[in-house]
């Protein structure tokens, strides 16, 4: 059974239509990436899945008792709000210490428990957000440009972490990204969005689709070249982003 069914979804803000007639399904265990230009409705689609936006028409059906993990695009914590990583991870319910430790380890930042959120580096912050999303043992992990503000090795390491998490927990992943070459290599399925679904399929199919080339330009295909990365090679990026917590 699908985790999420989106049927003929349309969303508008006032008179402005953001999404029209979008239909898609997310199956257990798959990694699906949404690509599309700015303003193409990617974030609105994700927000409708978590229930933050009401559809103008159509419907979003979540599996009964579906456990969601959500990593927002940006999280600004007001400097007047003191918040340790441990406290942040325990929100909103009480969470056992062992589960928190496990989630931090899974997200690749095991030693940050007592750090203040405001003291974290960009990479650490995103991984703490990932850890929080993992705490509820999600069946579906939603990531909205989770590597924004990270450098390339940082975001590559982040996406490898996502693949590891999927492998270890079997959760499905639905993510939005601008980093086409990195993300597409890690995806089972790519959905190209521009107010509607332009094209979808395996990364190879989408990359060669004329609709995709029209949006992202064949001129950039060199830079955005699609590659399937080799899972056997041995770069170790796990040592990055461990310095700033003190």
């Amino acid at each position: 059974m699908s985790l999420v069914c989106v049927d003929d979804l349309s969303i508008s803000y006032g008179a402005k239509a953001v999404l029209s007639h979008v239909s898609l399904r997310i199956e257990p265990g798959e990694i699906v990436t949404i690509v599309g230009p700015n303003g193409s409705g990617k974030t609105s689609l994700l927000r409708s899945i978590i229930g933050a936006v009401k559809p103008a028409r159509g419907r979003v059906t979540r599996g009964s008792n579906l456990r969601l993990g959500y990593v927002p695009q940006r999280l600004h914590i007001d400097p007047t709000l003191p918040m340790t990583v441990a406290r942040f991870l325990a929100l909103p319910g009480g969470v056992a210490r062992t589960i928190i430790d496990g989630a931090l380890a899974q997200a690749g930042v095991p030693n940050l428990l007592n750090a203040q959120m405001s003291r974290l580096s960009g990479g650490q912050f995103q991984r703490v957000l990932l850890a929080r999303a993992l705490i509820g043992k999600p069946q579906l992990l939603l990531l909205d440009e989770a590597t924004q503000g990270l450098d390339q090795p940082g975001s590559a390491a982040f996406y490898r972490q996502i693949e590891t998490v999927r492998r270890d927990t079997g959760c499905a992943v639905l993510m939005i990204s601008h980093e086409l070459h990195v993300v597409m290599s890690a995806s089972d399925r790519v959905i190209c969005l521009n107010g509607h679904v332009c094209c979808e399929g395996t990364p190879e199919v989408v990359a060669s689709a004329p609709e995709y080339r029209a949006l992202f330009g064949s001129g950039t295909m060199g830079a955005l070249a699609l590659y399937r990365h080799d899972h056997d090679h041995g770069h170790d990026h796990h040592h990055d982003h461990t310095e700033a917590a003190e």
Partner: protein
Amino acid sequence: MLDDFMMRATLAGIGVALAAAPLGCFVVWRRMAYFGDATAHAAILGVALSLALSISVFAGALVIALLMALTVNLLTGRGYAMDTLLGVLAHSALAFGLVAVSFLSGIRIDLMAYLFGDILAVSRLDLTVIWSGAALVVALIGWRWSALLTATLNEDLAYASGIDPKREQLVLTLALAITVAVAIKVVGVLLIAAMLIIPAAAARPLSRTPESMALVAAGIGSVSALVGLRAAYIFDTPAGPSIVCVAALIFAALSIAGSVRTSTQ
């Protein structure tokens, strides 16, 4: 013990400080300071109406403060910036309230008592109302604490956890209206926002978690009430403003200590 007016005043001040502390933290974290101010100012209209209708000042202020807060919630995001909207509503409500009071020629009203509080005139009944209201506010915020915190951090994070941030906003609005209504007698409508914001802001440098900030704010608020009342008694100064002055001095001292500590680290 409650026969002593100073004792009643002290208990009233501490009651308001305890309710204002956790609520004040959310007001600071969510940048609702002006919102709190607007709700408090509107309460003077409630005072005028209650006097005209001969109903309890507490009830009148509560209803008008609630209406004000709900109106602001409703109108937010419909064309005007929040601060413009609050500026219009807060000062209009204050002005209408002051004009309305002037029509009440049959009754002699000490307007100063409602603008700056009249804590030394707190009766046993007032004390019961203040402590009941304060207990209600603390219970309400305590009950919704985690959901409120999540919604304050990020609305989408709240939705993803099955929390409706709009409902949590309503909880805060209700708590704010109750706090305003019980605090009128203690510090008056013009200084209620000070009791919300100053202890919470003063507690920030001492706190590592949201919970500790609320507790420290409650402590600072209570100390301000105690010391402020004592000072008002000794120097014969107005009680409500004296309490706020003490809170402000504590804020200044802790801020300076905090920045000294940070720069020597």
